[in-house]
């Protein structure tokens, strides 16, 4: 004689308070979910980056805008001009990395000046960050005038630069944000490469 009271588990089918007869779906889901959640990151951790910037490579910033990245850094996100990938100047990002240092370039739609854009970025990302007092002006070789600020903290040092990608009508042009960061104590080592990249930023023809 068996019981058919809902929720009653016969003693021979109990395991840690659970019904052993109904473990299979739960175990299957748990195993597959954990494989997806932790398996891919584990595989990602053992696959190395192998996409170094070579001499002559030029970053595509969209609408003909370009920048010259430092040779030897890993291009982890973004496109080169030679890729002909159809980059959006207000949407795409570029990420370059080299031992302890990272450069991130982000395009955005913004109406206003480069200084206003930089203020908006700081306000939205981390208003309490240790950003240096006065912003300074930075002019690229192509004549783009941007605004640069630096930040320093326990986690490292950072340079933030904002540009409007037009020399003729900057207010309505797409904005470009360059964030270069390093682990503590190594900013000086990379500052020449950061400045070279900033100087190389060029708007598209006619902008």
């Amino acid at each position, binding site marked *: 004689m068996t019981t058919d009271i809902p929720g009653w588990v016969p003693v021979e089918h109990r395991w840690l308070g659970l019904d052993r007869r109904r*473990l299979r779906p*739960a175990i299957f889901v748990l195993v597959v*979910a954990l494989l997806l959640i932790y398996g891919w990151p584990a*595989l990602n951790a053992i696959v190395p980056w192998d996409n170094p910037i070579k001499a002559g490579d030029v970053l595509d910033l969209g609408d003909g805008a370009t920048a010259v990245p430092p040779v030897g850094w890993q291009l982890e996100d*973004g496109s080169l001009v030679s890729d002909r990938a159809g980059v959006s100047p207000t949407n795409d990002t570029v990420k370059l990395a080299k031992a302890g240092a990272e450069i991130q370039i982000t395009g955005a*739609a913004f109406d206003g000046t480069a200084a206003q854009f930089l203020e908006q970025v700081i306000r939205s990302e981390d208003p309490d960050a240790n950003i240096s007092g006065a912003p300074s002006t930075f002019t690229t070789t192509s004549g783009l005038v941007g605004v640069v600020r630096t930040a320093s903290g326990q986690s490292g040092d950072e340079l933030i630069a904002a540009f409007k990608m037009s020399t003729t009508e900057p207010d309505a042009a797409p904005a470009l944000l360059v964030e270069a960061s390093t682990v503590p104590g190594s900013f000086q080592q990379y500052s020449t490469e950061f400045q070279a990249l900033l100087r190389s930023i060029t708007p598209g023809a006619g902008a």
Partner: protein
Amino acid sequence: MTVTSSPAKSAQLTAIEQSGWGVRFKLFQPHNAAFWVWLGGVGIGAVGMIKYFGAGFDTYRLAVTSGILFFGIYLIPWLYFLRRQNRYTGQPGSLLATGFVWGGFAATFWIALPANAAMLEIWSKLLGPAGAAKWGAGLTAPINEEWGKALGLILLIGLAPVLIRSAYDGFIIGAFIGLGFQVSEDILYAYNNATSTFGENQLSSSLFILGIRGFAGITSHALFSAIFCTGVMWILGRAAGERHVVRGVLACLGAMFLHFAWDDVAGLAFGNAFLTVAMPYLILMPLAIALLLWIRRLASSTERRWIRDLLAPEVEAGVVDPQLLTAVSGLHKDRRHFRKVVHNRHRANLLTESVGDLAHEIAAARGEETPRVAHARHELLRLRGVTP
């Protein structure tokens, strides 16, 4: 009027037994491991969601709240539409809500978010950033997201093995899990779009996402999951005569292919600007809808047989006439034909709904004669203008 025919009654009882229709669903099952996995997945997903939106909530408050509001409203017609699909031996709302919540919290923020981030980076390493930008999303989302959602169906089978039997059950539950995923992802997109402009014009940013994602959502996660989960049910073959492994695998691959094609339009268009814009709407949407309708038709055959068997004694007793039975157990064209025969769309809908009530009461009473069954039968006869 009484129901006496014994072969018909026997068929009715078999249909009730096989379909599980009328069995109540209860989520809280502390002795069932599937309940704890569901709870853990949804709980971790909910915490992940709060952390994700909470990090920039001060800045992006308007984007998050408007996203929730817009897509909450967007959800209403979807729920109405899917409720209409939950016909034949329909599933309880609480079961569908359990699937929806899995899709909205666990499949998105517990599984897809970390899995996608890692897998996209693997593709960047293997294909280079430009190759990954072109192909990465389509080679990632169909694996992590379709599986993540379908795991919800497996858990629900563990929670309600009697209720989830046919391929059509997979179709309906898959659609609800997919809808939960879709709405959650839409809110995420509204937030992400606002962050890409660093908080400028958040309201118009959310409206833009509503326009884009709302329209594209017609053939998005709800559709993919309905097809994928139907395939899973065919592979599992939980109803008599419904084990079709090859068909099931093809359905799953079909859903994954549609998902891949939708995500990698730019790659598939090979740089052609016209194709990039036109392919999703002129090729992929019609293809997805055609596949969905075909799968739904195949998946419903067992349910339609069950509903015919369930009502067989009522047909023999003259309570349900054959044309009405065909409309209730048939396809869209059968219901359209019935409306023409009745010459009154409203009356035709009332009759089919009333038969649905009777079938539901018979199933809930496990084929026994109860006051509610008698009342449902009386109501149907009243609508038909037949004196008992």
